[in-house]
Protein backbone atom coordinates (compact mmCIF):
# COMPACT_ATOMS: atom_id res chain seq x y z
CA UNK A 1 0.00 0.00 0.00
CA UNK A 2 1.60 3.19 -1.21
CA UNK A 3 0.84 6.17 1.00
CA UNK A 4 1.79 9.43 -0.60
CA UNK A 5 2.34 12.30 1.84
CA UNK A 6 1.75 15.47 -0.16
CA UNK A 7 3.25 18.20 1.98
CA UNK A 8 3.73 20.58 -0.92
CA UNK A 9 0.50 21.68 -2.57
CA UNK A 10 0.04 21.02 -6.24
CA UNK A 11 0.61 23.91 -8.63
CA UNK A 12 -2.32 24.33 -11.01
CA UNK A 13 -1.36 27.15 -13.34
CA UNK A 14 1.59 29.51 -13.59
CA UNK A 15 0.39 32.80 -15.05
CA UNK A 16 3.45 34.91 -15.71
CA UNK A 17 5.78 33.27 -13.23
CA UNK A 18 3.40 33.14 -10.25
CA UNK A 19 2.24 29.69 -9.17
CA UNK A 20 -1.45 29.23 -8.44
CA UNK A 21 -1.77 26.20 -6.19
CA UNK A 22 -4.86 24.20 -5.31
CA UNK A 23 -4.65 25.54 -1.75
CA UNK A 24 -4.64 29.11 -3.04
CA UNK A 25 -7.73 28.35 -5.11
CA UNK A 26 -9.57 27.02 -2.06
CA UNK A 27 -8.57 30.05 -0.02
CA UNK A 28 -10.01 32.28 -2.75
CA UNK A 29 -13.27 30.39 -2.46
CA UNK A 30 -13.28 31.03 1.30
CA UNK A 31 -12.59 34.73 0.73
CA UNK A 32 -15.37 34.95 -1.88
CA UNK A 33 -17.77 33.27 0.55
CA UNK A 34 -16.91 35.72 3.33
CA UNK A 35 -17.26 38.73 1.06
CA UNK A 36 -20.62 37.44 -0.15
CA UNK A 37 -21.74 36.93 3.46
CA UNK A 38 -20.63 40.42 4.45
CA UNK A 39 -22.44 41.89 1.46
CA UNK A 40 -25.68 40.05 2.25
CA UNK A 41 -25.58 40.96 5.94
CA UNK A 42 -24.93 44.67 5.43
CA UNK A 43 -27.35 45.18 2.56
CA UNK A 44 -30.25 47.34 3.78
CA UNK A 45 -28.73 47.68 7.23
CA UNK A 46 -31.17 48.79 9.88
CA UNK A 47 -30.51 50.25 13.31
CA UNK A 48 -32.72 47.55 14.86
CA UNK A 49 -31.42 44.38 13.21
CA UNK A 50 -33.52 41.52 11.97
CA UNK A 51 -32.93 38.38 9.97
CA UNK A 52 -29.42 37.73 8.73
CA UNK A 53 -28.17 41.06 10.04
CA UNK A 54 -29.13 39.81 13.49
CA UNK A 55 -27.02 36.68 13.01
CA UNK A 56 -24.06 38.78 11.92
CA UNK A 57 -24.43 41.12 14.87
CA UNK A 58 -24.65 38.28 17.37
CA UNK A 59 -21.45 36.76 15.95
CA UNK A 60 -19.72 40.12 16.34
CA UNK A 61 -21.03 40.41 19.90
CA UNK A 62 -19.59 37.03 20.81
CA UNK A 63 -16.26 38.02 19.27
CA UNK A 64 -16.18 41.33 21.15
CA UNK A 65 -16.92 39.60 24.47
CA UNK A 66 -14.23 37.03 23.81
CA UNK A 67 -11.76 39.73 22.85
CA UNK A 68 -12.37 41.72 26.00
CA UNK A 69 -12.04 38.58 28.13
CA UNK A 70 -8.74 37.67 26.53
CA UNK A 71 -7.10 40.99 25.88
CA UNK A 72 -8.47 43.35 28.48
CA UNK A 73 -10.52 46.49 28.14
CA UNK A 74 -8.81 48.09 25.15
CA UNK A 75 -8.58 44.94 23.09
CA UNK A 76 -11.36 46.13 20.82
CA UNK A 77 -9.06 48.16 18.63
CA UNK A 78 -7.33 44.95 17.56
CA UNK A 79 -10.62 43.31 16.73
CA UNK A 80 -10.68 43.97 12.95
CA UNK A 81 -7.47 42.02 12.36
CA UNK A 82 -8.20 39.33 14.95
CA UNK A 83 -11.80 38.75 13.87
CA UNK A 84 -10.77 38.64 10.20
CA UNK A 85 -8.15 36.02 10.95
CA UNK A 86 -10.67 34.02 12.98
CA UNK A 87 -13.43 34.09 10.36
CA UNK A 88 -11.11 33.44 7.43
CA UNK A 89 -9.33 30.51 9.09
CA UNK A 90 -12.61 29.04 10.33
CA UNK A 91 -14.30 29.24 6.94
CA UNK A 92 -11.31 27.88 5.02
CA UNK A 93 -10.90 25.01 7.50
CA UNK A 94 -14.54 24.03 7.21
CA UNK A 95 -14.43 24.28 3.42
CA UNK A 96 -11.62 21.74 3.64
CA UNK A 97 -14.09 19.20 5.04
CA UNK A 98 -16.50 19.43 2.11
CA UNK A 99 -16.64 16.38 -0.18
CA UNK A 100 -14.27 16.90 -3.07
CA UNK A 101 -11.80 19.14 -1.29
CA UNK A 102 -8.75 16.94 -0.90
CA UNK A 103 -9.88 14.20 -3.27
CA UNK A 104 -10.15 16.43 -6.35
CA UNK A 105 -6.57 17.50 -7.14
CA UNK A 106 -7.80 21.01 -7.93
CA UNK A 107 -8.99 21.72 -4.39
CA UNK A 108 -7.17 21.36 -1.10
CA UNK A 109 -7.73 22.78 2.38
CA UNK A 110 -6.07 26.18 2.35
CA UNK A 111 -4.28 25.96 5.68
CA UNK A 112 -2.61 22.65 4.82
CA UNK A 113 -0.14 24.82 2.94
CA UNK A 114 2.69 26.21 5.05
CA UNK A 115 2.99 29.19 2.70
CA UNK A 116 -0.54 30.35 3.50
CA UNK A 117 -0.23 29.95 7.27
CA UNK A 118 3.23 31.52 7.23
CA UNK A 119 1.83 34.48 5.29
CA UNK A 120 -0.74 35.07 8.01
CA UNK A 121 1.92 34.68 10.68
CA UNK A 122 4.02 37.31 8.87
CA UNK A 123 1.10 39.72 8.95
CA UNK A 124 0.72 39.09 12.69
CA UNK A 125 4.47 39.61 13.19
CA UNK A 126 4.30 42.94 11.38
CA UNK A 127 1.36 44.23 13.38
CA UNK A 128 2.81 43.08 16.70
CA UNK A 129 5.91 45.18 15.98
CA UNK A 130 3.74 48.13 14.98
CA UNK A 131 1.70 47.81 18.18
CA UNK A 132 4.87 47.70 20.24
CA UNK A 133 6.31 50.75 18.52
CA UNK A 134 3.08 52.68 18.89
CA UNK A 135 3.02 52.02 22.61
CA UNK A 136 6.40 53.64 23.05
CA UNK A 137 9.44 53.51 20.73
CA UNK A 138 11.92 53.86 23.56
CA UNK A 139 10.45 51.00 25.58
CA UNK A 140 10.21 48.95 22.39
CA UNK A 141 13.94 49.08 21.65
CA UNK A 142 14.89 48.96 25.31
CA UNK A 143 13.22 45.61 25.84
CA UNK A 144 15.72 43.99 23.50
CA UNK A 145 18.54 45.16 25.70
CA UNK A 146 17.69 45.11 29.33
CA UNK A 147 16.77 41.82 31.11
CA UNK A 148 18.05 39.20 28.67
CA UNK A 149 18.76 40.52 25.16
CA UNK A 150 18.57 37.35 23.11
CA UNK A 151 15.43 36.11 24.83
CA UNK A 152 13.20 38.93 23.64
CA UNK A 153 14.58 38.71 20.12
CA UNK A 154 13.99 34.96 20.06
CA UNK A 155 10.41 35.17 21.29
CA UNK A 156 9.57 37.83 18.70
CA UNK A 157 10.45 35.33 16.00
CA UNK A 158 9.33 32.05 17.54
CA UNK A 159 5.82 33.23 18.37
CA UNK A 160 4.69 33.87 14.77
CA UNK A 161 6.58 30.74 13.70
CA UNK A 162 4.66 28.66 16.21
CA UNK A 163 1.40 30.22 15.00
CA UNK A 164 2.15 29.16 11.43
CA UNK A 165 3.36 25.68 12.34
CA UNK A 166 0.53 24.99 14.75
CA UNK A 167 -2.20 25.72 12.21
CA UNK A 168 -0.32 24.04 9.37
CA UNK A 169 0.44 20.91 11.41
CA UNK A 170 -3.09 20.51 12.69
CA UNK A 171 -4.79 20.91 9.32
CA UNK A 172 -2.23 18.85 7.39
CA UNK A 173 -2.43 16.09 9.98
CA UNK A 174 -6.21 15.97 9.65
CA UNK A 175 -5.94 15.88 5.87
CA UNK A 176 -3.42 13.03 5.87
CA UNK A 177 -5.39 11.15 8.52
CA UNK A 178 -8.55 11.20 6.41
CA UNK A 179 -6.58 10.21 3.32
CA UNK A 180 -4.96 7.26 5.11
CA UNK A 181 -8.28 6.18 6.58
CA UNK A 182 -9.81 6.21 3.11
CA UNK A 183 -7.18 3.68 2.02
CA UNK A 184 -7.55 1.48 5.06
CA UNK A 185 -11.30 1.52 5.77
CA UNK A 186 -13.03 3.24 2.83
CA UNK A 187 -16.53 3.15 4.35
CA UNK A 188 -17.81 4.91 7.46
CA UNK A 189 -14.63 5.47 9.47
CA UNK A 190 -13.30 8.45 7.48
CA UNK A 191 -16.56 10.24 8.30
CA UNK A 192 -15.65 10.13 11.99
CA UNK A 193 -12.33 11.76 11.26
CA UNK A 194 -14.01 14.36 9.09
CA UNK A 195 -16.22 15.23 12.04
CA UNK A 196 -13.10 15.61 14.19
CA UNK A 197 -11.72 17.84 11.43
CA UNK A 198 -14.70 20.17 11.91
CA UNK A 199 -13.94 20.56 15.61
CA UNK A 200 -10.21 20.95 15.05
CA UNK A 201 -10.82 23.54 12.33
CA UNK A 202 -12.91 25.72 14.57
CA UNK A 203 -10.64 25.40 17.60
CA UNK A 204 -7.48 26.13 15.63
CA UNK A 205 -9.10 29.23 14.17
CA UNK A 206 -10.02 30.33 17.68
CA UNK A 207 -6.51 29.61 18.98
CA UNK A 208 -4.81 31.51 16.16
CA UNK A 209 -7.04 34.54 16.69
CA UNK A 210 -6.79 34.49 20.47
CA UNK A 211 -3.02 34.15 20.43
CA UNK A 212 -2.77 37.02 17.95
CA UNK A 213 -4.89 39.11 20.28
CA UNK A 214 -2.77 38.13 23.27
CA UNK A 215 0.46 38.99 21.44
CA UNK A 216 -0.91 42.35 20.31
CA UNK A 217 -2.15 43.17 23.83
CA UNK A 218 1.16 42.23 25.38
CA UNK A 219 3.10 44.24 22.81
CA UNK A 220 1.02 47.36 23.32
CA UNK A 221 1.27 47.29 27.09
CA UNK A 222 4.70 45.90 27.95
CA UNK A 223 5.81 46.85 31.39
CA UNK A 224 2.31 46.60 32.78
CA UNK A 225 0.93 43.42 34.36
CA UNK A 226 1.48 40.46 32.03
CA UNK A 227 -1.54 38.62 30.70
CA UNK A 228 -2.14 35.08 31.82
CA UNK A 229 -0.26 33.64 28.85
CA UNK A 230 3.49 33.52 29.04
CA UNK A 231 5.66 32.66 26.02
Amino acid sequence: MEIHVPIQPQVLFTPGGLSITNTLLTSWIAVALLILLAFIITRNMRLVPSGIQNVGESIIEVLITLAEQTGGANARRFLPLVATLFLYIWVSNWIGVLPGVGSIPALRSANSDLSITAAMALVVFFWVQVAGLRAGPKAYFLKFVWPVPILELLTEFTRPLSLALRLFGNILAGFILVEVMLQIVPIGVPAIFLAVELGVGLIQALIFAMLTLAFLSMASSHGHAEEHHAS
Partner: protein
Amino acid sequence: MPDSTPLAAGLAIGLGAIGPGIGIGILGSKAMEAMGRNPEAGDTIFLRMISGMAFTEAIAIYALVVAFLLFGRIH
Protein backbone atom coordinates in the same frame (compact mmCIF):
# COMPACT_ATOMS: atom_id res chain seq x y z
CA MET B 1 24.02 0.76 6.35
CA PRO B 2 20.25 0.12 6.24
CA ASP B 3 17.99 3.10 5.81
CA SER B 4 16.75 4.15 9.25
CA THR B 5 14.52 6.95 8.06
CA PRO B 6 11.25 5.10 8.68
CA LEU B 7 12.37 4.32 12.22
CA ALA B 8 13.37 7.93 12.71
CA ALA B 9 10.00 9.14 11.49
CA GLY B 10 8.18 6.81 13.83
CA LEU B 11 10.34 7.71 16.79
CA ALA B 12 10.05 11.43 16.09
CA ILE B 13 6.33 11.53 16.58
CA GLY B 14 6.19 8.65 19.06
CA LEU B 15 8.62 10.13 21.54
CA GLY B 16 7.63 13.68 20.71
CA ALA B 17 4.03 13.09 21.74
CA ILE B 18 4.84 11.82 25.23
CA GLY B 19 5.56 15.20 26.81
CA PRO B 20 2.64 17.11 25.33
CA GLY B 21 0.33 14.20 26.11
CA ILE B 22 1.23 14.35 29.77
CA GLY B 23 1.08 18.14 29.72
CA ILE B 24 -2.40 18.24 28.25
CA GLY B 25 -3.55 15.65 30.78
CA ILE B 26 -2.25 17.76 33.65
CA LEU B 27 -3.90 20.87 32.23
CA GLY B 28 -7.19 19.10 31.81
CA SER B 29 -7.20 17.58 35.27
CA LYS B 30 -6.34 20.88 36.96
CA ALA B 31 -9.03 22.61 34.95
CA MET B 32 -11.61 19.99 35.94
CA GLU B 33 -10.63 20.40 39.55
CA ALA B 34 -10.90 24.18 39.37
CA MET B 35 -14.25 24.00 37.64
CA GLY B 36 -15.51 21.62 40.29
CA ARG B 37 -14.53 23.97 43.07
CA ASN B 38 -15.90 27.05 41.35
CA PRO B 39 -18.61 26.23 38.81
CA GLU B 40 -19.40 29.90 38.19
CA ALA B 41 -15.95 30.57 36.75
CA GLY B 42 -16.41 27.56 34.48
CA ASP B 43 -16.41 29.48 31.21
CA THR B 44 -13.32 31.52 32.04
CA ILE B 45 -11.45 28.44 33.22
CA PHE B 46 -12.40 26.54 30.09
CA LEU B 47 -11.18 29.36 27.87
CA ARG B 48 -7.81 29.53 29.58
CA MET B 49 -7.51 25.76 29.56
CA ILE B 50 -8.03 25.72 25.80
CA SER B 51 -5.40 28.38 25.23
CA GLY B 52 -2.96 26.55 27.51
CA MET B 53 -3.59 23.37 25.58
CA ALA B 54 -2.86 25.16 22.31
CA PHE B 55 0.69 25.90 23.39
CA THR B 56 1.21 22.37 24.66
CA GLU B 57 -0.22 20.76 21.57
CA ALA B 58 1.99 22.91 19.37
CA ILE B 59 5.04 21.04 20.66
CA ALA B 60 3.52 17.77 19.53
CA ILE B 61 2.76 19.38 16.18
CA TYR B 62 6.41 20.36 15.74
CA ALA B 63 7.34 16.70 16.29
CA LEU B 64 4.68 15.68 13.80
CA VAL B 65 6.05 18.04 11.16
CA VAL B 66 9.50 16.52 11.62
CA ALA B 67 7.94 13.07 11.24
CA PHE B 68 6.22 14.14 8.00
CA LEU B 69 9.46 15.56 6.61
CA LEU B 70 11.30 12.34 7.41
CA PHE B 71 8.45 10.24 6.04
CA GLY B 72 8.65 12.05 2.74
CA ARG B 73 12.33 11.28 2.43
CA ILE B 74 12.05 7.50 2.66
CA HIS B 75 13.89 5.90 -0.22
